[in-house]
């Protein structure tokens, strides 16, 4: 149908384990947790008060102070990670916008988020309840929408091509990377940011997720002692919920000949994308990860490869009892005997679950695994669950020859996305 190929030429990230790619990758391969007690608000009324916060982040280092004041934290992260990615790709000009020799009309983005500017919305609503409607900020609305981040990134860096914000709960990041790939392959654009951002650490989220009994307990399952870094225990037999976190990751996807013509260095190629729905339940995943299976199969078909070509899966691995069980079953059903030769790790054991940004953060991880040959571990893995018998790369990073990596993302409402990347070869 087309010979257009989408390669990644730059990456940027802001995560609970580090600001910037260097700090983040160093923490992930060292097995360092980014989960700690909440400092962004007083979490004492809540049963569980731990999160994956981005630490020491100053928005004014990345944007004008006035803009920073008006924008939500999710937009701050998006702008910061986008700047790093553009610089990494050699696309950032001296005046802080995209290089003049790139056609900005053919440079767009799919910038996903789960909930957008929830912090700004709640602040506005609190003012409304306490002080009346006339005191609500006129800046609230355009800064709280789920597409505010994608709008501001376009404005700040001068990107005028196709621009959309996808929302599919926790599957968002995978959809954003996949849709960005498709936009390049179909010829809608030459360069696209595929990205996700999220800043959901507000009291209401802890009330809502707490009431759903969805959050992981911050204690050492052996000693019973309080330990925030132990709250996320994907695939471990004692896992009991996920940890909410925040951050943003941005991949610069570029049409291969466009990248080569300007002398850019392709890091990896995005070769497959699959998307499906469970059509099952608002909150629970379909049995045996049936929808996740169809997304993985569709991504393999789109990539034109068989299951045996895959070396590494970055799991959705949220640390909830049901997700990790069903995802393991889905991997077994799709990969058959090859499942036992795969490395499968969940970096949510360290970053927590950044909702709409998670899939983008994990696509970043896959690209780093392919380009460095190092697989970050699933930490806090001490008690094998007899039903979950894949190789989860427990506790220690591992050097490995990885040619093809797959990233899984699933969301509330039954959304599934899978993205496949390959080490770049001409």
């Amino acid at each position: 149908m087309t010979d257009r190929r989408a390669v990644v030429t730059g990456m940027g990230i802001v995560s609970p384990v580090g600001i910037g790619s260097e700090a983040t990758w160093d923490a992930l391969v060292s097995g360092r947790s980014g989960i700690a007690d909440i400092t962004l608000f007083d979490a004492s009324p809540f049963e569980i008060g731990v999160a994956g916060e981005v630490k020491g982040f100053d928005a004014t280092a990345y944007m004008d102070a006035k803009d920073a004041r008006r924008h939500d934290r999710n937009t701050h992260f998006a702008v910061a990670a986008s700047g790093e990615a553009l610089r990494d790709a050699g696309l950032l000009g001296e005046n802080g916008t995209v290089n003049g020799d790139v056609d900005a009309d053919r440079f767009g983005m799919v910038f996903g988020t789960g909930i957008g500017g929830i912090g700004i919305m709640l602040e506005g609503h609190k003012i409304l309840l306490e002080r009346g409607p006339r005191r609500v900020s006129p800046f609230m609305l355009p800064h709280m929408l789920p597409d505010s981040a994608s709008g501001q990134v376009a404005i700040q860096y001068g990107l005028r091509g196709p621009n959309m914000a996808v929302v599919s709960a926790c599957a968002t990041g995978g959809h954003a990377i996949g849709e960005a790939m498709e936009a390049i392959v179909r010829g809608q654009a030459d360069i696209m940011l595929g990205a996700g951002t999220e800043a959901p650490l507000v009291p209401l989220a802890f009330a809502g997720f707490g009431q759903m009994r969805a959050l992981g307990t911050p204690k050492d399952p052996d000693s019973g002692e309080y330990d925030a870094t132990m709250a996320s225990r994907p695939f471990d037999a004692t896992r009991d919920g996920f940890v909410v976190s925040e951050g943003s990751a941005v991949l610069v996807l570029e049409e291969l000949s466009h990248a080569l013509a300007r002398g850019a260095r392709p890091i990896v190629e995005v070769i497959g994308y699959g998307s499906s729905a469970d059509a099952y339940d608002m909150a629970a995943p379909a049995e045996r990860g049936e929808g996740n299976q169809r997304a993985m199969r569709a991504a393999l078909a789109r990539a034109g490869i068989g299951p045996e070509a895959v070396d590494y899966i970055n799991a959705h691995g949220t640390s909830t009892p049901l997700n990790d069980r069903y995802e393991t079953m889905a991997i077994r059903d799709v990969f058959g005997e090859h499942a036992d030769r795969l490395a499968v790790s969940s970096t949510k054991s360290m970053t927590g679950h950044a909702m709409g940004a998670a899939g983008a953060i994990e696509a970043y991880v896959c690209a780093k695994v392919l380009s460095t040959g190092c697989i970050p571990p699933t930490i806090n893995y001490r008690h094998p669950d007899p039903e979950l018998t894949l190789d989860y790369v427990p506790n220690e990073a591992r050097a490995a020859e990885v040619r093809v990596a797959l990233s899984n993302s699933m969301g509330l409402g039954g959304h599934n996305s899978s993205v496949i990347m390959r080490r770049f070869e001409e």
Partner: protein
Amino acid sequence: MTRPPPPRDAARRAVVTGLGAVTPIGNDVATFWSNLVAGVSGVGPITQFDATGEEVRIAAEVKSFEPRDWIDFKQARRMSRFAQLAVAAARQAIDDSGLQIGDHNRDDIAVVVNTGGGGIGDVAIGQQTMLEQGGRRVSPFMVPMLSPSMGAAQISIQNGIRGPVITSVAACASGVQAFVEAQRLIEHGDVDVVIAGGTESAILPVAFAALGNMGALSKRNDEPEKASRPFDAGRDGFVFGEAAAVMVVEAADHAEGRGANILGEIAGGALTGDAFHISAPDPSGYGATLAMQRALRDAHLEMEAVDYIVAHGTSTPLNDATETKAIRAAFGTHADRLAVSSNKSMIGHTLGAAGAVSGLVAILAIRDGVIPPTINQETADPACDLDYVPNVARRATVNVAISNGFGFGGQNAVSVFARVDA
């Protein structure tokens, strides 16, 4: 202008076979369309909350919507109103298309239903509960209700559709984007059928406070039905509305194979970003012009082929003048031979649903040979000098209609709809 688009595969053309709508002037397509053609305004005093004493006290609300007509009672209670409206519109569209969904095709159907604010109402309720009664009183259903993706997800769950389920948000351009995405999914061969559209329901104090304080809303509280007056010199802002509109979009060979009634086709589309400002449009209209030009190029159509533009036409001073300028820049002298009208004059601005409603209007104008009017045209504005089909509907053959959607943050989306000759 860069490369021309690849030639179209006739079998993979995206045709429209079913329509559904829940709007301020009718909770089904037939009622909506007859009122729109008759120039009936759906704007009135706000009833969903007490707006006494507020600066803005009018809205275009959906009236007498009964979720239980469409959805199991218990499930409806756990759905935000924006999702309820979406499920109802999708049910109508699927019935209208005659599409039977079963094990033979459920994996090959996608849902792309976009929104602006999603379940913002449930966020507001949850926060009030938490502030007044504590976190333990917050509903465990709040989180899965509020996600903007729940309109599309609930359509998938209620109808057993298991292909890609996608929600994209581009503020007020969201609805148009759904049709652009639907066409691509069909053309690319990902699926055979897409349930595509937009939904919005946010008639809430916090939304009115925010939009009102931006100066974006009309304050013509005493004459609600005259408040939305796109392109008229007396316009003073938009009227906030709620709605859902959904189309069944199919690959041409799939629709023909099952003998479906083909209403028209989505012939092309394009998205662009202004890269200008978080709420104001670029006054040059560059991004809007570029989106119209690219959409036509994508459709392999010359600009002279266009008969009718379903305008974004919000009734704000800036949008309507900028859109007029952008249309002139895109169409040159042909701009004076075009009909341009804004259905927002009657149903207000339904944000994430607006572009979806406009897509339905384009298809219905093609089907029936009738162009609905822009009502409340009383005083001409020299900055708005196109043919806006003032006040009275017009009979005209419409072969090609385009629908414009421009959003906060400078996101522009244009879809091209065309007649399909039997």
